[in-house]
Protein backbone atom coordinates (compact mmCIF):
# COMPACT_ATOMS: atom_id res chain seq x y z
CA UNK A 1 0.00 0.00 0.00
CA UNK A 2 2.85 2.30 0.91
CA UNK A 3 4.60 1.54 -2.40
CA UNK A 4 1.40 2.24 -4.26
CA UNK A 5 1.13 5.57 -2.50
CA UNK A 6 4.67 6.51 -3.50
CA UNK A 7 4.05 5.52 -7.09
CA UNK A 8 0.82 7.47 -7.23
CA UNK A 9 2.56 10.52 -5.82
CA UNK A 10 5.33 10.17 -8.36
CA UNK A 11 2.81 9.94 -11.20
CA UNK A 12 1.05 13.04 -9.97
CA UNK A 13 4.33 14.91 -9.88
CA UNK A 14 5.12 14.01 -13.44
CA UNK A 15 7.91 11.68 -12.47
CA UNK A 16 7.36 8.97 -15.09
CA UNK A 17 9.91 10.63 -17.32
CA UNK A 18 12.46 10.13 -14.61
CA UNK A 19 12.04 6.38 -14.96
CA UNK A 20 13.06 6.45 -18.59
CA UNK A 21 16.33 4.69 -19.19
CA UNK A 22 19.20 6.02 -21.25
CA UNK A 23 18.22 3.70 -24.02
CA UNK A 24 18.30 4.89 -27.60
CA UNK A 25 14.91 5.34 -29.18
CA UNK A 26 14.12 4.11 -32.68
CA UNK A 27 15.30 6.52 -35.32
CA UNK A 28 13.27 7.42 -38.34
CA UNK A 29 16.37 8.10 -40.37
CA UNK A 30 18.19 4.82 -40.62
CA UNK A 31 21.13 6.43 -42.37
CA UNK A 32 21.84 8.68 -39.42
CA UNK A 33 24.60 7.86 -36.99
CA UNK A 34 23.46 7.35 -33.45
CA UNK A 35 20.08 8.22 -32.19
CA UNK A 36 18.08 11.13 -30.99
CA UNK A 37 14.91 11.01 -29.04
CA UNK A 38 12.81 12.61 -26.38
CA UNK A 39 14.63 10.99 -23.50
CA UNK A 40 13.96 12.37 -20.09
CA UNK A 41 17.65 12.70 -19.41
CA UNK A 42 18.24 14.90 -22.41
CA UNK A 43 15.04 16.84 -22.06
CA UNK A 44 16.26 17.83 -18.65
CA UNK A 45 19.73 18.44 -19.96
CA UNK A 46 18.78 21.82 -21.29
CA UNK A 47 15.16 22.37 -20.58
CA UNK A 48 14.87 25.54 -22.60
CA UNK A 49 16.13 23.92 -25.78
CA UNK A 50 13.78 22.21 -28.10
CA UNK A 51 15.49 18.95 -28.83
CA UNK A 52 14.37 17.42 -32.06
CA UNK A 53 12.75 14.07 -31.69
CA UNK A 54 15.12 12.57 -34.21
CA UNK A 55 18.14 13.42 -36.28
CA UNK A 56 15.96 13.42 -39.35
CA UNK A 57 13.53 15.87 -37.78
CA UNK A 58 16.38 18.18 -36.82
CA UNK A 59 17.79 18.06 -40.34
CA UNK A 60 14.41 18.71 -41.91
CA UNK A 61 13.74 21.65 -39.59
CA UNK A 62 17.18 23.05 -40.31
CA UNK A 63 16.63 22.83 -44.05
CA UNK A 64 13.20 24.40 -43.72
CA UNK A 65 14.39 27.20 -41.44
CA UNK A 66 17.74 27.64 -43.16
CA UNK A 67 19.68 26.89 -40.04
CA UNK A 68 22.49 24.59 -39.09
CA UNK A 69 22.07 21.54 -36.91
CA UNK A 70 23.86 21.49 -33.60
CA UNK A 71 24.52 17.92 -32.61
CA UNK A 72 25.40 17.11 -29.06
CA UNK A 73 27.42 14.04 -29.78
CA UNK A 74 28.09 11.55 -27.05
CA UNK A 75 30.13 8.41 -27.36
CA UNK A 76 28.89 5.79 -25.00
CA UNK A 77 26.57 6.09 -22.07
CA UNK A 78 27.61 8.52 -19.39
CA UNK A 79 25.73 8.71 -16.15
CA UNK A 80 23.71 11.86 -15.76
CA UNK A 81 26.14 13.45 -13.32
CA UNK A 82 29.02 13.12 -15.76
CA UNK A 83 27.08 14.68 -18.60
Amino acid at each position, binding site marked *: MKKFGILAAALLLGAPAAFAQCTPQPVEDSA*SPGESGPLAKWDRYVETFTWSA*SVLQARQA*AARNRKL*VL*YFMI*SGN*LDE*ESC
Partner: protein
Amino acid sequence: MRTVSFLDPEVRARVAERFECAWINIDPQRRYPPGLYKGQGRLHLRNATGADNIALIFATPDRKVLHVLPGYWDPRTILAELDFVQALRDAVLDDRTRFKAGAPEAFDRMHRDRANSLGAGSEILRNVHRRLTWEALRRLDDWTRADAAALVVND
Protein backbone atom coordinates in the same frame (compact mmCIF):
# COMPACT_ATOMS: atom_id res chain seq x y z
CA MET B 1 28.38 20.93 -19.93
CA ARG B 2 24.99 20.34 -18.42
CA THR B 3 25.58 22.14 -15.17
CA VAL B 4 27.65 25.02 -16.49
CA SER B 5 27.73 25.89 -20.16
CA PHE B 6 24.22 24.90 -21.16
CA LEU B 7 22.73 26.64 -18.19
CA ASP B 8 24.23 29.94 -19.26
CA PRO B 9 21.32 32.15 -20.40
CA GLU B 10 23.22 33.63 -23.34
CA VAL B 11 24.34 30.24 -24.58
CA ARG B 12 20.80 28.92 -24.33
CA ALA B 13 19.33 31.91 -26.15
CA ARG B 14 21.86 31.87 -28.94
CA VAL B 15 21.61 28.14 -29.50
CA ALA B 16 17.82 28.23 -29.53
CA GLU B 17 17.80 31.13 -31.97
CA ARG B 18 20.31 29.83 -34.48
CA PHE B 19 20.27 26.05 -34.49
CA GLU B 20 18.11 23.01 -34.63
CA CYS B 21 19.37 20.73 -31.89
CA ALA B 22 19.68 16.99 -31.75
CA TRP B 23 21.75 14.57 -29.78
CA ILE B 24 23.41 11.48 -31.11
CA ASN B 25 25.22 8.62 -29.46
CA ILE B 26 27.82 7.23 -31.82
CA ASP B 27 28.78 4.36 -29.55
CA PRO B 28 25.75 3.30 -27.51
CA GLN B 29 27.37 0.05 -26.44
CA ARG B 30 30.17 1.82 -24.59
CA ARG B 31 29.61 2.38 -20.89
CA TYR B 32 31.58 4.64 -18.60
CA PRO B 33 31.96 4.17 -14.88
CA PRO B 34 29.55 6.30 -12.82
CA GLY B 35 30.95 9.56 -11.51
CA LEU B 36 33.57 9.88 -14.21
CA TYR B 37 34.27 13.52 -13.37
CA LYS B 38 33.37 13.36 -9.72
CA GLY B 39 35.45 15.72 -7.65
CA GLN B 40 36.51 17.93 -10.53
CA GLY B 41 33.96 20.54 -9.53
CA ARG B 42 31.33 22.30 -11.56
CA LEU B 43 33.41 25.29 -12.45
CA HIS B 44 36.85 23.83 -12.67
CA LEU B 45 36.78 21.64 -15.73
CA ARG B 46 39.38 22.61 -18.26
CA ASN B 47 38.30 23.24 -21.80
CA ALA B 48 38.30 20.13 -23.99
CA THR B 49 37.91 17.83 -20.99
CA GLY B 50 36.21 14.65 -22.16
CA ALA B 51 37.15 15.25 -25.79
CA ASP B 52 36.77 11.56 -26.51
CA ASN B 53 33.26 11.20 -25.20
CA ILE B 54 31.29 14.39 -25.84
CA ALA B 55 31.40 16.98 -28.62
CA LEU B 56 29.36 19.78 -30.10
CA ILE B 57 29.17 19.33 -33.85
CA PHE B 58 27.84 22.03 -36.16
CA ALA B 59 26.64 20.66 -39.46
CA THR B 60 24.60 21.56 -42.49
CA PRO B 61 21.20 19.92 -42.93
CA ASP B 62 22.86 17.41 -45.26
CA ARG B 63 25.37 16.52 -42.52
CA LYS B 64 28.47 18.32 -43.71
CA VAL B 65 30.46 19.18 -40.61
CA LEU B 66 31.49 22.84 -40.38
CA HIS B 67 32.86 22.95 -36.87
CA VAL B 68 33.50 20.72 -33.90
CA LEU B 69 34.07 21.53 -30.25
CA PRO B 70 35.29 18.32 -28.66
CA GLY B 71 34.72 17.96 -24.93
CA TYR B 72 33.66 20.49 -22.32
CA TRP B 73 33.95 24.21 -23.09
CA ASP B 74 33.21 27.16 -20.87
CA PRO B 75 30.29 29.47 -21.74
CA ARG B 76 32.48 32.35 -22.84
CA THR B 77 34.31 30.19 -25.36
CA ILE B 78 31.10 28.59 -26.58
CA LEU B 79 29.54 32.01 -27.19
CA ALA B 80 32.54 33.13 -29.21
CA GLU B 81 32.49 29.90 -31.21
CA LEU B 82 28.76 30.21 -31.84
CA ASP B 83 29.45 33.61 -33.36
CA PHE B 84 32.26 32.11 -35.42
CA VAL B 85 29.95 29.40 -36.71
CA GLN B 86 27.39 32.01 -37.68
CA ALA B 87 29.99 33.97 -39.62
CA LEU B 88 31.30 30.80 -41.22
CA ARG B 89 27.80 29.81 -42.20
CA ASP B 90 27.20 33.17 -43.86
CA ALA B 91 30.51 32.92 -45.69
CA VAL B 92 30.22 29.41 -47.11
CA LEU B 93 26.49 28.69 -47.42
CA ASP B 94 23.82 30.29 -49.52
CA ASP B 95 20.26 31.00 -48.45
CA ARG B 96 19.33 27.39 -49.02
CA THR B 97 22.22 26.14 -46.88
CA ARG B 98 24.13 24.91 -49.89
CA PHE B 99 27.81 25.62 -50.38
CA LYS B 100 28.57 28.75 -52.34
CA ALA B 101 31.20 29.01 -55.02
CA GLY B 102 34.45 29.72 -53.26
CA ALA B 103 33.32 27.93 -50.11
CA PRO B 104 36.49 25.81 -49.80
CA GLU B 105 38.75 28.85 -49.77
CA ALA B 106 36.49 30.75 -47.38
CA PHE B 107 36.21 27.74 -45.08
CA ASP B 108 39.96 27.31 -44.80
CA ARG B 109 40.63 31.02 -44.48
CA MET B 110 38.10 31.52 -41.70
CA HIS B 111 39.27 28.59 -39.62
CA ARG B 112 42.88 29.67 -40.12
CA ASP B 113 42.12 33.29 -39.21
CA ARG B 114 40.24 32.18 -36.14
CA ALA B 115 43.17 30.03 -35.07
CA ASN B 116 45.55 32.94 -35.53
CA SER B 117 43.33 35.30 -33.59
CA LEU B 118 43.32 33.18 -30.47
CA GLY B 119 45.61 34.33 -27.72
CA ALA B 120 47.72 32.56 -25.15
CA GLY B 121 45.82 29.97 -23.21
CA SER B 122 43.75 28.95 -26.23
CA GLU B 123 46.19 26.46 -27.70
CA ILE B 124 43.70 23.62 -27.72
CA LEU B 125 41.06 25.61 -29.54
CA ARG B 126 43.73 26.82 -31.95
CA ASN B 127 44.57 23.22 -32.74
CA VAL B 128 40.92 22.49 -33.42
CA HIS B 129 40.62 25.32 -35.91
CA ARG B 130 43.88 24.47 -37.64
CA ARG B 131 42.79 20.90 -38.18
CA LEU B 132 39.37 21.73 -39.53
CA THR B 133 40.26 22.24 -43.17
CA TRP B 134 38.08 21.85 -46.21
CA GLU B 135 40.10 18.81 -47.14
CA ALA B 136 39.29 17.26 -43.78
CA LEU B 137 35.64 18.25 -44.05
CA ARG B 138 33.45 15.21 -43.76
CA ARG B 139 29.96 14.05 -43.23
CA LEU B 140 28.66 13.55 -39.75
CA ASP B 141 28.22 9.86 -40.45
CA ASP B 142 31.96 9.44 -40.71
CA TRP B 143 32.85 11.00 -37.38
CA THR B 144 34.29 8.82 -34.70
CA ARG B 145 35.23 9.54 -31.11
CA ALA B 146 38.86 9.24 -32.16
CA ASP B 147 38.39 11.98 -34.76
CA ALA B 148 36.94 14.36 -32.21
CA ALA B 149 39.65 13.59 -29.68
CA ALA B 150 42.39 13.98 -32.29
CA LEU B 151 41.39 17.58 -32.89
CA VAL B 152 42.65 18.66 -29.50
CA VAL B 153 45.97 16.81 -29.42
CA ASN B 154 48.95 19.13 -29.17
CA ASP B 155 51.28 19.30 -32.13
